[in-house]
C-alpha cells in the first residue's frame, strides 16, 4: 500500500518542529528518512503511527486520510517500531509479540487460531521461533529488536514504520535486522542515522533538515558531497561500494565541512 505525507506541520509546545513536509513510499518500497539530529524524522514518523496529531497536512494511506480512520482501524494497517524500550514487567517474548494482535481484539476476547498462527509465524520470520517463553528483558539488544519487529509483523500491517531500529546494535545485528526488513517487501518508512545503511537498503530517500524535506530521490540522486556538506556539515566523498555497487559515503572524520 502506498503511503504519502502531504504538507505536514507539527508543533510541539507551541514550537513548530516540522513544516510543509511531503514525502512518499510507493507500494512495496522502503523509503528512508535521513537527516541530522533534531531534523524532525521522529516527529514525522510519530504522526504516521498516531502518537502525534499534525497541526496541518495529511497522512494518506492508499487514498484515505488516516484521520478519517479510528485509532484501531489505522493500527490494523500501520505498525510501528518506535525508539522507546519499554519496561521490565516480566513479559515473555511471546506475550510481547502477541501484543501485535491488540487492534484485532475486542475487550475480554481470548487468543484465537488466527492470532496464534500470526504470532508463531512472526516469531519464525525473525528467527526467534524457539524463544517464545524467554523473558523479554533477558534478551540481548539484537534479539529484542527482532522480537519488537515480530510484534509489528504480527500486527499484519500494510505499512511498517521504524524509527532508528538499528540504534545500539553492533554491525552484524544491524545487517541482520535490515536484511529481515528488506525480505518483507512491505511498504516501509524507515528513519536511519547510518547513511551508508540507508543508501543500501532504501529504494528512496527523503532528507530532512530543520523540519523540512530538502531532497528526495534515489540514494544515488540524493547523497551527493554537496548535500552532505550542506545538511550534515561533513566533508565526504561518494564512491561506489566495491561489493554491492551501492553509493558508499567515505566521511572525512578529521574535519567538518568548510574547514
Amino acid at each position, binding site marked *: 500500500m502506498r503511503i504519502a505525507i502531504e504538507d505536514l506541520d507539527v508543533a510541539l509546545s507551541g514550537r513548530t518542529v516540522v513544516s510543509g513536509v511531503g514525502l512518499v513510499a510507493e507500494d512495496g518500497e522502503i523509503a528512508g528518512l535521513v537527516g541530522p539530529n533534531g531534523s524532525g524524522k521522529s516527529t514525522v514518523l510519530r504522526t504516521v503511527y498516531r502518537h502525534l496529531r499534525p497541526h496541518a497536512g495529511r497522512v494518506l494511506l492508499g487514498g484515505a486520510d488516516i484521520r478519517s480512520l479510528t485509532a484501531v482501524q489505522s493500527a490494523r494497517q500501520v505498525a510501528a517500531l518506535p525508539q522507546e524500550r519499554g*519496561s521490565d*514487567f516480566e513479559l515473555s517474548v511471546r506475550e510481547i509479540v502477541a501484543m501485535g494482535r*491488540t487492534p484485532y481484539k475486542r475487550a475480554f476476547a481470548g487468543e484465537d487460531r488466527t492470532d496464534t498462527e500470526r504470532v508463531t509465524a512472526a516469531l519464525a520470520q525473525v528467527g526467534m521461533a524457539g524463544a517464545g517463553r524467554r523473558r523479554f528483558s533477558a534478551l540481548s539488544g539484537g534479539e529484542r529488536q527482532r522480537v519488537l519487529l515480530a510484534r509489528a509483523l504480527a500486527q499484519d500491517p500494510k505499512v511498517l514504520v521504524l524509527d532508528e531500529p538499528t540504534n545500539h546494535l553492533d554491525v552484524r545485528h544491524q545487517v541482520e535486522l535490515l536484511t529481515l526488513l528488506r525480505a518483507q517487501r512491505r511498504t516501509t518508512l524507515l528513519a536511519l542515522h547510518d547513511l551508508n545503511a540507508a543508501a543500501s537498503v532504501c529504494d528512496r530517500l527523503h532528507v530532512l533538515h530543520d523540519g523540512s524535506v530538502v531532497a528526495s530521490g534515489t540514494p544515488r540522486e540524493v547523497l551527493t558531497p554537496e548535500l552532505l556538506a550542506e545538511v550534515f556539515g561533513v566533508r565526504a566523498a561518494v564512491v561506489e561500494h566495491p561489493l554491492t555497487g551501492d553509493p558508499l559515503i567515505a566521511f572525512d572524520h578529521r574535519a567538518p565541512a568548510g574547514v
Partner: protein
Amino acid sequence: MTATAAVGQESEGPVREREHGAAAARWACAVLAPALLLALTASVCLGSSQVPLGEVWSAVARGVSGGDPVPGTQDLIVWQLRVPRALLAAVVGAGLGLVGTAVQALVRNPLADPYLLGISSGASLGAVAAIVLGAGAGGLLGLGLSSAAFAGALASFALVWAMARRGGGFSPLRLVLAGVGIGQFLSGFTHYLVLQAGDDQQTHGVLFWLMGSLGGAQWSGLALPAAAVLLGLAALLARARALNALLMGDETAASLGVEVTRLRRELFVVTSVLTGVLVSVSGAIGFVGLMVPHACRMVVGGDHRRLLPVAALFGAVLLVVVDLVARTALPDQELPVGVVTALIGAPTLLYLLDQRLEKA
C-alpha cells in the same frame, strides 16, 4: 520442579508455548481459591475465643438462612463480627491487589502502589478530621467516618486530576508528581490534626485508622466495597490488552490503536474511586498493593489478562491471613493490619526478589 521443567522443554511447541502462562494462571487459581476458603474459615474459627468448626458452620448456616442466633452459643461473634470481618479483609485485599497492578501499569513503574496518586492522603485527612474534630464536624456535614474518608478521597482526586491533566495530559511523570505533591500537602494537615487530638484515646484511634484496620467491619458495610471491587475488576479486565501495550511505552501503545490519554484518564478514575472506597472502609493498609502484583507477576507473568484476576485472588488470601495474624499474634491486643503487612510483606518481597536475582 526439575521434572516439570524438563517436560515443558520437551513439549515446547507453538501451542504449548501459548499455554504456558495460562497454565500457570490456572494452577495459581486452583491453589488460591481453596486457600481463600481455608483462610476465611480459619479467620472465623480463631480469635480471642476459639470457635469449633462445627459451631462455625451451624452459625453460618443459621445466619445465611436468616435464623436468630441461638443463646448460649457463639453465633453472635461468628455471624456479626468474624464473618463480616473476614469477608471485608478478602474484599479489601482483592481490591488492593487490583489497584496496585493497574497503577503500576498506569505510571509504568513497578514501585508504584495504590497510594502513590494521593487518594489515600485525602481519605486519611477526611477520616482524621472526623475523629479529631469529632461528632461536631462530622455531624455538621452529616458524615460518618467512612463517608468523611471517601469525601476526602474525592477531594484529593479532584486536585490531582486538575494538576495532572495540564500540559498534554496524564503523563506518568505528571500523575506521580501531582499525586505525591498533593498527598504530602494533605498529609501536612493530617499530621497537624493528629497533634491537636484531644486525648490519648483519640490519638490511638487516629493512629489505628492511619495504619489500617478491619475492625469496623459490618454486614451493612460490605456491599459497597464488594461491588466496587467487582466493577473495578471488570473495568480493568476490559482494558487488559491496552494495559499490556502501555507497558511497552506510550508510542508503542498508540501504534497498537490504544488511545493513550483517554486510557490513562479512565484508569486514573477507576483506580482512584476503588482506592477511595477501600481506604474509607479500612484505612490505608500498606504494602499489599505493592507486593501482590510483584509476587503474582513472578508466577503468572506480566500479561494483565491473567495477572489481574490472580492478583485479586492472592490479595484476598493475603489480607485474610494477615488480619488473622493481627488479631491473634499478641494476647489481649490487636495489632493494626498495616503493621503486620509490613512485617510479613517486606521480607517476603525481598525473599522473592532475591530468589529471582539468583535465577537470572
